[in-house]
């Protein structure tokens, strides 16, 4: 029986052909005065291995998770159609890295069904790690002083209190905000009533029922930018392998296959980079523009140190 540590190591070695080497990395690295924002991208069909490589390109999981840390993982895992949920190979790779880095407790911020993990061929090898995952539905009320439309939110206590918060979304089409990725995934860590307020603000509930969830996309976009002020991820791992390009977010619809795993240190940078796969310009996306106005993301991709094949 091969143990997890050896298994993860062997995966990296097995996929060494697609690891971005130092010279290639430099060739595709755009540096600027700011080294605050880092992003690594690996393209290929071995999503588990490529997730390990992308995080290694940022310095490895031990850069983010220290021995004894608690980790909160926020995975987009609620839907069933192809291209609508984060590939579980990617989530399992992140989980394996966190365990290897010495995480004391790993929490799922959003409940995860057995069906979700069963979609991965890696489940058998990592079954005990999956069984060790914890979930709590405890929430806390968070004041968002700098929020423009959202001043308070009820958010998962795990998300707010864990030592390391890892956001693991899929980039895909979305009927309201045009795309969903890291920043919108944060709604998965919010209570139902907060999600309603993110959509509608403080206007009366009955009226909202008839207006629809996307009756005010500007408010929705601003609120998403606001809620990300509560806590930003320490690490983002974005699934851009097989993604839904139409009929989002639930599908089924047109699938695109960029086969890319993206790791980033900043949620805005991750979204700015990933939206290209939907044929969108990030300049046109309100969620990104409002996040930039809050000042927690790069103003341009030139401000991001990108390591890509």
């Amino acid at each position, binding site marked *: 029986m091969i143990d997890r540590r050896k298994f993860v190591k062997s995966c990296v070695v097995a996929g060494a052909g697609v690891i971005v080497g130092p010279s290639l990395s430099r060739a595709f690295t755009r540096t600027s005065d700011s080294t605050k924002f880092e992003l690594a991208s690996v393209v290929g069909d071995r999503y588990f291995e490529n997730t390990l490589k992308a995080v290694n390109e940022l310095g490895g999981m031990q850069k983010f998770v220290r021995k004894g840390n608690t980790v909160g993982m926020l995975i987009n895992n609620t839907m069933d159609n192809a291209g609508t949920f984060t590939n579980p190979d990617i989530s399992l790779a992140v989980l394996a890295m966190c365990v290897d880095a010495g995480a004391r407790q790993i929490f799922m911020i959003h409940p995860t069904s057995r069906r979700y993990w069963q*979609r991965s061929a890696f489940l058998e090898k990592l079954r005990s790690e999956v069984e060790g995952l914890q979930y709590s539905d405890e929430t806390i009320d968070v004041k968002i002083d700098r929020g423009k439309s959202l001043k308070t939110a009820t958010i998962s206590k795990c998300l707010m209190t864990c030592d390391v918060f890892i956001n693991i979304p899929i980039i895909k089409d979305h*009927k309201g905000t045009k795309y969903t990725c890291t920043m919108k995934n944060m709604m998965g860590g919010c209570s139902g009533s907060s999600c309603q307020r993110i959509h509608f603000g403080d206007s009366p509930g009955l009226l909202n029922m008839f207006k629809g969830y*996307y009756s005010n996309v500007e408010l929705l976009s601003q609120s998403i930018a606001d809620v990300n002020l509560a806590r930003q991820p320490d690490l983002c791992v974005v699934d851009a392998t097989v993604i839904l390009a139409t009929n*989002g977010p639930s599908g*089924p619809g047109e699938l695109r296959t960029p086969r890319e795993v993206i790791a980033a240190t900043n949620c805005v940078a991750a979204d700015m980079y990933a939206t290209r796969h939907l044929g969108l310009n990030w300049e046109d996306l309100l969620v990104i523009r409002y996040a930039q106005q809050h000042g927690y993301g790069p103003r341009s991709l030139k401000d991001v140190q990108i390591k890509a094949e």
Partner: protein
Amino acid sequence: MMHWAVQEQGVTLLHLLPRSEVLGEWALTDSARTYQGRDLYLFIDGGADLFMEYGFRQALAAEYHGHRNEVINLEIYEMADPGAACGVYSVRCGDDAIPMDIGQGASGHSYYIMFWKGNYYVSVSGSDSTPEVRKWLEVIARAIDRTLAGSEHLPSIHRLLSNENLLKWEYIRGSLGLSSVDVIDVRGLEGFSEGVAGTYKDHTIVYLRWSGSKEAARCFDDVGRTLKSDARFRNSTVRNGTLTAVEARGRVICLRQSESYIVLAVASGDSVARASCEEAARSIRE
């Protein structure tokens, strides 16, 4: 505007599930899930609004596993009326659809089939697009088709579209449906009760209907003002009752009010857009 239909007590969609004898080695995973009214948000939070806009009653979701761990997801939506089912299908079926003889409108794609029939919109999607999965997508879709009753007519507004060279059409009941017509991003087009969009080789036509001519006129005036102040449009002018502007991608958009309708035409050239718009407005009066 969103619509909920009152659900008859105790009537679920479970009886529509294909019987096990037609499913070969495919087995239902867990039990099928059902969602009524606002519960749809629990199933497709973020995707439910479109169904609500058209008029939603209830949905059923089931998952089948094949012997090689392939998965087929089945979703059956009971809508408020045939127009709602037809409308949802029309905006979701996509551009690359291959027509199929299932239900009253069906399209096959690499990994899914969707169709509508009567009050129902159905999607069957696979975890991959292997021939085995595709074969069973069709088996399941046809089995459900056999259990559903059809309706006689398409939404009557559909008749306004000329069938000549029509590539695709979409039936609209609100802003989300309208936003699916990718050529249109005009702000202020609100309050209409229904519409239909037709895509032709060199232009797109959209008819939107209000409850009366006064309401349509009010919206037409609002859109005129909005277009003038919207930085995404330029050269906004009104000539002989036709409002014309050029959008960011360089295409020309023409709008005209005719009775309780507003007609929009979009084309790459001014003359095609204007002629299409005026002809469409004439067709309403006739």
